[in-house]
């Protein structure tokens, strides 16, 4: 916090000293005024983006875990389909946005879809690792007691994968906010209902740089809030999972 105050103070002083134009580099006081004056619109946009990020993140969690479970049960499916999961990580949204608009139109559902595309892979990758990378002695223990495949999945693989899933979820949560904003850039807005992504676009186009800063700050706060929440939930869940016990 001390460092932040020093940076803000230095920025304010530099704005006065160099007399930067507001459209180029607004002072902290200008950004503060933009937040105060445009608070309602900023809040509404933040809530809309937050909702899209949550919906996309939640969908990624469910779909990602299901895909990871399927991958863990079949080497053939895993080796065939895993490259397509990697595709999700590398596909440029700008390239597929026209396709998404053609198939699903613009608006909230398309934004959620883009969020899922961007945030899904960390869940798949980490959970698959957690389901598969298991001490051979533990697998041997379950073989010794003639456990069925379903019992091994339910009583060994899934609990073992929880810490890995939490790690993937933390990464995915940050990417979900990015995904929601990027989605709003390309596929998701109306003139009356829009999120932070669209707010960033219109404020930058109109050179309302102080408002742009405000939108960026709101995006960061949203990202921190979601990441922090997922981290807290993960820590609570992992209280049982301290693996230093064995």
């Amino acid at each position, binding site marked *: 916090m001390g460092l932040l105050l020093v940076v803000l103070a230095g920025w304010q002083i530099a704005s006065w000293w160099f007399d930067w134009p507001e459209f180029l580099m607004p002072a902290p006081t200008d950004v503060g005024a933009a937040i105060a004056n445009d608070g309602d619109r900023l809040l509404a946009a933040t809530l809309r983006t937050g909702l899209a990020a949550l919906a996309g993140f939640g969908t990624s969690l469910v779909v990602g875990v299901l895909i990871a479970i399927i991958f863990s049960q079949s080497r053939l499916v895993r080796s065939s389909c895993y490259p397509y999961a990697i595709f999700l990580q590398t596909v440029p949204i700008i390239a597929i946005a026209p396709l998404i608009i053609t198939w699903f139109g613009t608006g909230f559902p398309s934004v959620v879809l883009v969020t899922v595309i961007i945030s899904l892979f960390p869940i798949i990758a980490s959970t698959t690792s957690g389901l598969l990378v298991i001490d051979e002695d533990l697998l041997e223990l379950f073989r*010794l*007691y003639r*456990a069925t495949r379903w019992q091994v999945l339910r*009583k060994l693989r899934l609990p073992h994968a929880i810490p890995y899933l939490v790690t993937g979820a933390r990464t995915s949560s940050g990417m979900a906010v990015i995904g929601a904003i990027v989605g709003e850039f390309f596929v998701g807005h109306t003139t009356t209902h829009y999120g932070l992504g669209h707010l960033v676009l219109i404020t930058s186009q109109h050179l309302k740089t102080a408002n742009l800063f405000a939108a960026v700050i709101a995006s960061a706060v949203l990202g921190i809030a979601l990441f922090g929440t997922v981290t807290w939930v993960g820590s609570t869940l992992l209280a*049982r999972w*301290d693996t230093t*016990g064995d």
Partner: protein
Amino acid sequence: MDCTTTHPALALDRTTVAFDPEHVVLDQVDLEIATGEFVGLVGPSGCGKSTVLRLLAGLLEPNSGTVHRSGTQRIALVFQEPNLLPWRTVEENIRLPLELAGMDATETHRRVNESLELIGFTVADASKRPRELSGGMRMRVSLARALVTRPDVLLLDEPFAALDDLLREQLNEELLAIHAARNTTAVFVTHNVSEAVFLSDRVVVMPPGTDREFTDVPVEFPRPRTASLRADATFARLAGEVSARLRQASGEVER
């Protein structure tokens, strides 16, 4: 070489295990374990002791030869590492085999309490997680998990190797008490010659390499055995004999 019995509890008959043509672990090995017998298995690292246990447990199939297990025996294996599931409590770890077998809750609860009592754990200990336990306590839980199925055969793969001597000796005596109470057939793999002699009715020396025979050293001390046995001159002689056989089998020159 082997203890001839009419109906051995376990037997390997000309059993070969090779993980690849260059790596033959066991070559036409013969071994018989009588019902209720406590057999110590000693040998240098890499001679195939753990492989023998895994064959007897049914975790491994031989490339040739046969593995005999009489009747419908329940077999339990205690690993060198406790292998407790860290997200489960002591009680939940112990009842795992019974859950997998689909045993009803009442009987499961009764057997788990029985196992907890056998290893000297209280009700408060039962709700602890592995991270809250010492190494010795975790090994006891691993043993309790093996015993909860009331096995006819108990296979132990160097279970006390990572523990200090004092704790190891204490657990040796506890293991003997359990063996006496249940008349369980046991095969105990160890590097520790003194431990093998203390626990066993017979010590089987496994040589390295694939062209040597197992050798038996009978141990005829009466039971129950206590820590004072280790100070006995005959005990020292027997331990020396086993060590000598090990060195001979390894090809070292005896002094």
